[in-house]
């Protein structure tokens, strides 16, 4: 798992990663299944997290995830190398996820809308950290898919706003605005119980 590091070390790590990716891609073009497995295993956890955050339905996540990573195997030449491989994969995942969402006949609703007002569901749950997590998950669930995507790409994947704009195919200012509104919503939802902290 990547952690926050100094910019220099991140850059060195990123370059080594890009090298690995290109080597593996070259092997994939020669139909080397092991190389595909290596890339799959490397990017699958990050993409799954992104898609889970976005779609919140395991059956959709699984479908979109496999469809996304299969592009590597089926059409490795469609990666032109104009961006990092990770950016390219996130872009495909985003497009396919939005398509999958539009295909769903029922709208994604917030399953906890009516229980939000009673955060203390069980008497045993005492740890403040768990209450915080629960509140945060509920607040996240109420965001739009676009806002959830920006929050996840920024906070978890630590991707810059220009790259996020590329992934989501929107202006950079839109990325900033989505993040701004998303954070405001999260803070507002947590303010009652965790006002001092947040």
């Amino acid at each position, binding site marked *: 798992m990547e952690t*926050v590091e*100094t*910019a220099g070390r*991140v850059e060195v790590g990123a370059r080594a990663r890009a090298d690995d990716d290109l080597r593996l891609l070259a092997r994939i073009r020669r139909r080397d*299944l092991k190389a595909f*497995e290596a890339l*799959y295993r490397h990017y*699958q*956890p*990050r993409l*799954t*997290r992104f898609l*889970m*955050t976005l779609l*919140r*339905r*395991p059956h959709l*996540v*699984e479908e979109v*995830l*496999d469809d996304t990573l*299969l592009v590597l195997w089926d059409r490795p030449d469609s990666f032109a190398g104009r961006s990092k491989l990770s950016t390219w994969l996130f872009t495909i995942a985003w497009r396919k996820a939005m398509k999958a969402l539009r295909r769903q006949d029922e709208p994604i609703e917030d*399953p*906890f809308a009516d*229980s939000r007002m009673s*955060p203390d*569901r*069980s008497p*045993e*749950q005492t740890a403040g950290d*768990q*209450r*915080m*997590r*629960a509140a*945060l*998950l*509920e607040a996240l*669930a109420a965001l739009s898919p676009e806002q959830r995507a920006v*929050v*996840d790409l*920024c*906070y*978890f994947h*630590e*991707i*810059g*706003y220009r790259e996020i704009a590329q992934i989501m195919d929107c202006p950079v200012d839109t990325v*900033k*605005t989505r*993040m*701004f509104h998303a*954070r*405001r919503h*999260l*803070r*507002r939802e947590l*303010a009652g119980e965790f006002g001092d*902290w*947040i």
Partner: protein
Amino acid sequence: MQGGICGANWPANLATGSEKPMADILSFRGDPHRATEMLLPWYASGQLDEDDRAVVDAHLSQCDLCRAALERERRLKAQVAGLPVRADLGWEKLQRRLAPDRAARRLPLPRTVLTWPALTAFAAAQAALLLGAVTLFRPQGPQAAYRTLGAPAARGNGNLLIMFRPDTPEQEMRLVIGRAGARLVDGPTAAGAYVLDVAPARRENVLADLRTRHSVVLAQPIEAAP
């Protein structure tokens, strides 16, 4: 108090909103604070462009409010990034899709990804336990705890795992299980999940139906142990 504060007409007098989060106050106040506030998430992760970082640095050096906002921003970021979202979908399954003839006839792993509602529910109660329980149903996972739960079922060991919202009345659970035409095999597990058995041919439909139920936070297939 609640209603007006978040509306468009933000009062010029900041003191009246002192118990509201600082981000709200900053965002409606004026340009330098707002510009900084918009960039803080990427400032916190070291992902700002050179120019933007210079602007933020300059403002932070002379604004206590925004420095405090940066601290809160870092805490929020850490908390969101640390949320337990399981991310282990199966390579094995995809491999079969790639080469169905060549792939070994191995049983598929049950899905171990949790839905948002499931996460919401269990984070409130017992995060660690549920993660343990889900792992429990993977063929190679530790199964000792599972075996100790209740008597073995007459027909099969169950092929479906279900979890209700913590506040669901027992009557409602029975109703949901009954309507699905499922038989209760085991549970509640340590994490509060139940194991059901349905006719294999109907399982996909039953799962799809269960997932639409308001009281159900998780409904997953369980594959038989090899």
